[in-house]
């Protein structure tokens, strides 16, 4: 864990009063700046580890036996085991985690696909051939995102109850699609705006219609942005609790709902709870690390590049 000095890094605050690169490279000021820089790098490492520690601890606990997990003071060196994971999937005495996991995959994957199918043409219309009043349309999309879910929950529940869609995973697919659509339109609008207009015009001159242009020209060029959008929609759907909790019960239960029930139905098994949390979080962690760079843009609704 060593650090590199970064005399060129612009303007991080500190007490340095002299810019290192305008001094003699080996002068005392440069050495001081270098030492301070090393110290700050080290500090970042320490904070990073402390900050992440609860999550690392969860991982470690999931690899300990139940009796080693519940000791006070905590034990770092207890032997590691995968028993909790096999017990979780083997569902000793409890409900099997597979149906909820499959439900979560269904809800997340299908809603993400629907979002892409709806958002790509919309983003295309908004970015490549701006329709009149396009910012108003953009802000309409955004405004639907800013109002609390909880205010629409009851009518959705009553509607689902009346048409017999309670505890049906496709209801969640529809709701998650609407939940993620505005973000996807905003994100993709900013990605598609980077596609050179000339290649689109060339395709149109060749007689391609909108669907062809989208699939053959725009989508390949904007692929990284579209992939990032998809990952973010997947994360949001996977994480959602309130809708899933209210609108599903037994058959359509999703993984987060399963997790909340996991504790009460089986008593508290700390190590197994950690294993379950790790399993449920893994897809999101993977997606999140993969989309790291675009994450900000997505979460800030495309406003920050």
């Amino acid at each position, binding site marked *: 864990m060593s650090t590199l000095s970064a005399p060129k890094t612009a303007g991080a605050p500190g007490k340095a009063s002299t810019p290192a690169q305008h001094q003699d490279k080996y002068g005392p000021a440069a050495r001081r700046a270098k030492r301070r820089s090393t110290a700050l790098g080290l500090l970042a490492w320490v904070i990073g580890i402390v900050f992440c520690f609860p*999550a690392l601890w969860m991982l470690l606990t999931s690899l300990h036996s139940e009796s080693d997990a519940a000791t006070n*003071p905590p034990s770092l060196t207890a032997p590691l085991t995968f028993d909790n994971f096999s017990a979780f999937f083997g569902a000793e005495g409890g409900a099997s985690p597979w149906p909820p996991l499959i439900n979560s995959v269904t809800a997340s994957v299908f809603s993400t696909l629907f979002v892409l199918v709806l958002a790509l043409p919309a983003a295309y219309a908004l970015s490549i051939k701006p*329709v009149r009043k396009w910012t108003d349309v953009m802000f309409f999309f955004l405004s639907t995102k800013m109002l609390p879910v909880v205010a629409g929950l009851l009518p959705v529940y009553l509607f689902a109850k009346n048409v017999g869609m309670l505890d049906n995973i496709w209801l969640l697919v529809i709701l998650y699609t609407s939940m993620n659509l505005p973000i996807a339109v905003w994100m993709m609008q900013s990605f598609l705006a980077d596609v050179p207009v000339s290649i689109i015009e060339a395709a149109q001159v060749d007689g391609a219609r909108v669907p062809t242009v989208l699939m053959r020209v725009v989508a390949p060029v904007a692929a990284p942005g579209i992939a990032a959008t998809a990952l973010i929609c997947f994360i949001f759907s996977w994480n959602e609790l309130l809708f899933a909790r209210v609108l599903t019960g037994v058959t359509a239960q999703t993984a987060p709902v399963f997790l909340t029930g996991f504790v009460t139905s089986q008593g508290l098994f700390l190590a197994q709870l950690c294993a379950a949390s790790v399993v449920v979080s893994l897809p999101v962690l993977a997606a999140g690390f993969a989309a790291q760079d675009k994450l900000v843009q997505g979460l800030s609704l495309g406003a920050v590049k």
Partner: protein
Amino acid sequence: MSTSVSAAPPPAPPDPSPPAESRPPAAPRSGRARAWATRAPLLPALIFLIAVTQLPFVATLFISLFDWNSLNPDARSFAGLSNYGSVFTDADLRDSVFTTMLLTATVVIASVVLGLLLALLLDRKFMGRGFVRTLLITPFLLVPVSAALLWKHVLYNPEYGLLNGGWAWFTGLFGVEDPSQPDWISDMPLLAVEASLVWQWTPFMMLILLAGLQSRPLDMMEAARLDGANAWQMFAFLTLPHLRRYLELGVLLGSIYIVQNFDAVFTITAGGLGTANLPYTIYQTFYQAHEYGLASAAGVVVVIGTIVIATFALRVVSSLFSEEARRA
């Protein structure tokens, strides 16, 4: 998360796209056909969104005018605005309004301040910066329910939680036999929920502010440095003003998400011990107490509150957005 509508139209943003309008008008008929051709790809998304998010909210508005308890469906009657009266006079609901404001403000302010410090630290080059950034993002990427369960059972548990366990280990180094072992959740319930949320949201703020820091005009920083500005002056007079928009964006987006928080309150305290915020209270009013009219009225009140925040948010986003358009 969306289900509802902004009742107010978004504040008219300064339209950064004059090209669309300033194009010479084409011949009327083909012009109209072309206008529809450009609009057509937008329609599926627009119609879907209106159907799924706007209609339920209209229904909520409607239901809020009724005295309707689903356990007693025959007694449903028109109640006018009396549900709204109850929202503001009912002690539990009033408390949850206050709790929501306190929770949101505390979490947002703390995570913005911490996020700023971390962003400044990560803005420097050092070995393994990418890895440290990944470590810092991890809390934000845990499934919120997992994170809440982690805090409740693994960290806060008074018997074998990491906080007390770590403290016992630490004092054990100094030969203290029986260190104090607080029961975090019952001793300081709101703080317990807040701490877990700050932990989850600090990375979000850090990411936004880091993006802001990295978009600073380097030549201006360089010029200031040559003029002899010290690090503090550069931070106070260049970096901070530049970051203002990003700070606003972080505060507003954070507020919008945290006002709606359900997972942490539901999981850590189940709304007990004075931690019930509005989303949790509404959930309870309708899901457990079956008071549909009252829950809807409370929902409408949340929406009105959020519109106030959202109006500012849209303005901030639109200013960032129009800046983007100018640059393009």
